[in-house]
């Protein structure tokens, strides 16, 4: 009997245990996810330095009346703006620079009628950075349209649109000074009523990276960050539609509140690495 035992065991292993690998993967998925295991934060967005949320939607955003824009409201109404720090342990040899992530989040999937590389073709996102290291010229760029910055200035303008693979960084005199990596992340969840393989996009994040070798140490001094979303217009320098003081096609979640909006954009302030 003993000489048969290992043979019986081997047969059971092959015929029963091995085929369990596939359903076992699904079971393990649920278990691992429930334990909080995630893809390393270094890849998925970094440490949050500060964020502002607006999950209820922004009353200031008035999509133009044309039916063309009705279907893309999700793509314009940002629900969260965050600033995250990504640092790879030294010496990792990773090859990806330590950087700051400027993250604008939106509900659902982006509208992408032109099927562009980054997956969005209707909207454009501007990030503005007021750095303590730069002696600001205290000018509002015409590119920022009707928006007034509460701090009165910005030093870097980061433009992300579906027509370019990279984020473009301008200084406040309008010169393109650098390009950086941009990526669009879709967070998917199982669609109700469908089998597990069918997923739907719950959230879309647009992430522009600013290398720390370019920006300087973001954990020192007072930094101001702004995020602005508008309709893409490739005929405009800023890629923002209607740079003619028509602010209502823009969405910026860090407006103070609807009553005192009046085109004043308040920043996400981070001083010495802490949100103010």
């Amino acid at each position, binding site marked *: 009997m003993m000489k048969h035992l290992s043979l019986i065991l081997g047969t059971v292993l*092959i015929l029963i245990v091995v085929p369990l690998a*596939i359903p076992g993967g*699904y079971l*393990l*998925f649920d278990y691992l996810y429930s334990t909080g*295991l995630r*893809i*390393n934060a270094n890849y998925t967005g970094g440490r949050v330095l500060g964020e502002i949320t607006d999950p209820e939607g922004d009353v200031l955003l008035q999509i133009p009346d044309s039916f063309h824009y009705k279907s893309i409201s999700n793509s314009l109404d940002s629900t969260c703006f965050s600033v995250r720090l990504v640092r*790879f342990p030294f010496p990792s*040899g990773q090859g990806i620079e330590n950087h700051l992530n400027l993250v604008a989040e939106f509900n659902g999937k982006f509208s992408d009628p032109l099927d562009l590389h980054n997956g969005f073709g209707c909207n454009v996102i501007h990030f503005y950075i007021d750095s303590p290291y730069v002696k600001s010229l205290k000018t509002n760029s015409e590119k920022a349209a009707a928006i007034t910055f509460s701090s009165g200035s910005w030093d870097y303008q980061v433009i992300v649109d579906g027509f370019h693979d990279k984020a473009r960084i301008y200084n406040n005199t309008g010169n393109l000074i650098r390009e950086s990596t941009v990526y669009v992340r879709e967070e998917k969840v199982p669609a109700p009523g469908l089998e597990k393989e069918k997923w739907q996009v719950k959230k879309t994040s647009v992430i522009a990276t600013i290398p720390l070798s370019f920006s300087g140490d973001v954990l020192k001094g007072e930094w101001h960050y702004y995020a602005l979303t508008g309709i893409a217009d490739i005929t405009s320098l800023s890629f923002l539609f209607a740079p003619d003081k028509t602010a209502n096609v823009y969405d910026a979640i860090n407006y103070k509140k609807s009553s005192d909006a009046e085109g004043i954009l308040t920043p996400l302030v981070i001083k010495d690495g802490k949100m103010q």
Partner: protein
Amino acid sequence: MSDSSLLPARGKSIQASIFLTIFSISILAVFALLTGSFADSVMRTFEIKRMIGAVLTLLYLGIIFFLILKTGRVSKWRNIFFISYAICFVISFLGTLFEQRGHMELLDSDALYGEAPMCHIVVPMLLIPMILGKGIIFPTSYASVPTMLIAVIIILLVFGRGFCSWVCFYGGEETLFSRLPGKKIWNIRKPHPVVKAFPFGMLFFIVVTSFLTLTPVYCIWFCPFKTITEFFEINSTLRIFQTFLFAMLWIVLVVVLPILSKKRIQCGLFCPMGAFFSLGNKISPFIVKIDTSKCTKCLQCISVCPTFSLSAKTIEKGRTEITCTKCGDCFDICPAGAISYGMKGSSITIHNHPFIKEGRKPGFFRRMAADLWEPGTIFMFGIFLLGSVLAFNFFNNTIVRILRLMGL
């Protein structure tokens, strides 16, 4: 007890070979229809080229498996499967990459987005950061991690290092280059023990450094197979150096040295995943047995072993070393037929089977039962099926591409 002279020296009976081939191909067809990209494409659209590809793939795999069983020439037919599998993997992988991205580079944005395809070699590097830090240190999609984890764990426990000669889609490249016609220029019979232990040192090194740096060190610095799959975008001096390093490793370890030595140098003396699966050989019930009473000590098996897993000392003990990939190359070369698959704790082999009565020629069903229920058949059935499940989409994808090229 059986009388081995009543059985053919090699190979299973025709009835057992046909039964097992049909059984395994049927299971493979069900797997293909239920999971993977073929299933997805069938669900979405019914494409005739994919159906032709699927039928040809099943036919090809069925013929290969039948020939392995019937002829008993495990090495010859397994190598044909293994090499064609590796070629189809490269064609399929690169074809898909070029269709989707237009190049082989993994852009920084793809890495940050978590779009890098995960392979089995990543698993040892993931384990400690996963357990201690609840973080997955490889930029891949979350869904692929549990599937890969469970597959590697089951393979490790059940087949041990058998994976490296039957399932690994990289191993066939080296086998191809080591089997190219030509004289063996560099005869390595017995590498220095330190050289043989190098993969274990490499495994330890990458596990520790991956934990300390929270990055997949092997993938970033050492993986030779990035040369024919995908690699990080070359946008800095560091990346130029890394690209040079892995390209040189591929050229030297996978191409040049295998051609010169007729051995799988990368698998035998470098690959940390091979070392990881070698640890599984301690647990796996399936082993390669050497019948010392039959062995004539000709030592031809040592010269053909592609991963340096045999020595005079281990042959005397009737077993292989821990690094054995269960490829079967030594079965074919052994003039005495002394080497076969066996199972730990059991003396049963095809030459020594309780179903075969001494002095009596076995009948149709008794012979079939003995052929089906012996360690070698069970091992080959399991591991070939596993390899086929993984290889199916690569074969199918390649056939579809060839059909498209032919304008069909």
